[in-house]
């Protein structure tokens, strides 16, 4: 049986049911973080607390007692400069990764600023239009920037997990890779992704979690990338498919540029492997 990390809401009865499991717990209220940690660590392992907030980062009521807790904060924006810089010394001490939607130049720009200030950041590449050029510029900064800076996802994930012989699915950065994460609702129903859970698409119950890997819908989702080759769809012919897995196929025609970004990401990953001595360079 594959041991998944379970992503669930903060509901104490549910957490009690999930004894012995590794959990990602999502909350909207930042002030719940210490309680979540305390509750989860009684009988479970805490992978991370996912905060999904409508407030800007600068307005999150984070406190020094949250220092040892891994926090993934989904925020709409960084927020007002004065407030942010006042909070920065605390943010730098936390185990925090800030998730920003990669729409518009401001968040992409702010990801660079946060990274340069030592705050780990992740771009959520959803919605349209995605600014591929700005993201490529950010990627180059992340990979080749002169000074030390914090990680920027999903670039760091792909570069760290890149292999010449297999595909890399950076959905894990967003806790959305069914190979690694399953989403559990308060009533125990299981979904393959956060989007599925929101849309009410479930594939089983907690009681049957051990058999989930045999479910055909699970297998289909797990092998989703291979369908591009069976169907001969456009992304199957893309040189960067191995690191993007056709995630942007729906907007590829209207907003091309993903190929350039992911080809650059592959090139950087390849160079990194050569630098690390993992791949032999041959003339």
């Amino acid at each position, binding site marked *: 049986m594959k041991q998944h990390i379970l992503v669930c809401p903060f509901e104490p009865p549910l957490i009690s049911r999930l004894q012995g499991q590794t959990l990602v717990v999502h909350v909207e209220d930042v002030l719940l973080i210490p309680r979540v940690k305390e509750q989860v660590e009684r009988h479970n392992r805490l992978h991370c607390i996912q905060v999904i907030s409508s407030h800007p980062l600068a307005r999150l009521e984070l406190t020094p007692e949250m220092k040892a807790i891994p926090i993934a904060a989904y925020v709409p924006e960084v927020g007002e*400069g004065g407030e942010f810089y006042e909070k920065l010394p605390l943010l730098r001490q936390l185990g925090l990764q800030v998730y920003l939607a990669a729409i518009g130049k401001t968040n992409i720009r702010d990801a660079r600023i946060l990274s340069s200030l030592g705050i780990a950041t992740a771009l959520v590449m959803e919605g349209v239009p995605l600014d591929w050029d700005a993201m490529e510029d950010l990627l180059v900064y992340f990979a080749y920037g002169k000074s030390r800076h914090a990680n920027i996802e999903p670039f760091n994930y792909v570069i760290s997990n890149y292999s010449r012989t297999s595909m890399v699915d950076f959905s894990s950065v967003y806790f959305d890779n069914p190979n690694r994460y399953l989403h559990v609702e308060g009533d125990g129903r299981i979904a393959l992704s956060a989007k599925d859970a929101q849309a009410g698409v479930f594939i089983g119950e907690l009681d049957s979690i051990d058999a989930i890997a045999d479910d055909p819908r699970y297998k289909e989702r797990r092998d989703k990338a291979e369908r591009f080759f069976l169907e001969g769809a456009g992304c199957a012919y893309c040189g960067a498919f191995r690191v993007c897995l056709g995630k942007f196929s729906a907007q590829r025609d209207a907003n091309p540029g993903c190929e350039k970004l992911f080809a650059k990401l592959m090139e950087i990953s390849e160079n990194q492997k050569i630098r690390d001595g993992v791949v032999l360079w041959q003339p």
Partner: protein
Amino acid sequence: MANVLLTQRCVRSCPYCFAKKHMDGSVPDDIISWEDIVYIADFLQDSANRGISLLGGEPTLHPDFSDIVLYLNARGFHVHVFTSGIMSTSVFEALKRKLSSLPKRKLSFVCNVNDPRESTEKELRAVGEFLTDFAPQVTLGFNMYRPDFDMRFLFDYINSYGLERRIRLGLAHPIPGEMNRFLAIQDLPKMAERIVDYIPDFARFKIAPGFDCGFPFCLFTEEQVGRLFAVMEGRLKFGCGPAIDISPDMSVWCCFPLSNVYTRSLYEFDSLQQLVAYYENMGKKIRIEAGGLYEACDDCSYREQGLCSGGCLAHILSNFRTEAKVRPEFMPP
């Protein structure tokens, strides 16, 4: 320390302005981007440089001015801002709200002021408000572009607002190929006499003047140099070295007056040390051709001892304009 031009726009139009060429050619959205600010911070940090000067135009015109200061502070830089002190109410309020609590070790200002008789009431009021609120962090800067300047108002400002007891004295230099007002070489002795006249005032008010670049040693007698040394608290220099200005489009030059001539891109250099070395080397080559402002500079013992660099390179280069074009690499356009 590198000077970063946040914008080329300005609120004033000073006749001596070294940056006039850049102001005139600038477009309204000619401001530095955040991406470039991060690049510059990385570049300087990588060069083990922990100080940065923000200039313009008027740097506070950059819409993110306060956030840039806070960002650079957060990156561990001391930020030194060159401002006219003239800003709109909204900009000033934002400045007070975000920056007034920063200590002097993190943020300081040079407020470049002109003789009040050459400023409007509105400008004077704005400067007054700025000096009132940021007094302990402000050093006054004064640019001399004519020999009959009057500095008494500077003493009044320092005493009434409680500013840093220093004055940064700048010489208005010629921009090769441009028409800005500057102190001609023949006017320099008069300017020097005027400074010497103020020595008793500097001593009486305990205010230390400091020379910006390009002052020749020989403008003063050795007795005068001794008196200046005393009022300047030992910080007397007669140098002219690369100041390194970085413009919003990431062009670099060694100082404003020479920005017409030796502009490069920051991306061509790996470190500030490399950049400074490039411009020092350029300066040396020119000074091999002409030791300084005067013929006598070639054999001058002060210059040989490194006590004087022979005056401003822009002056020297401007003299080349009248010569045959046998050294095209030094020729201003």
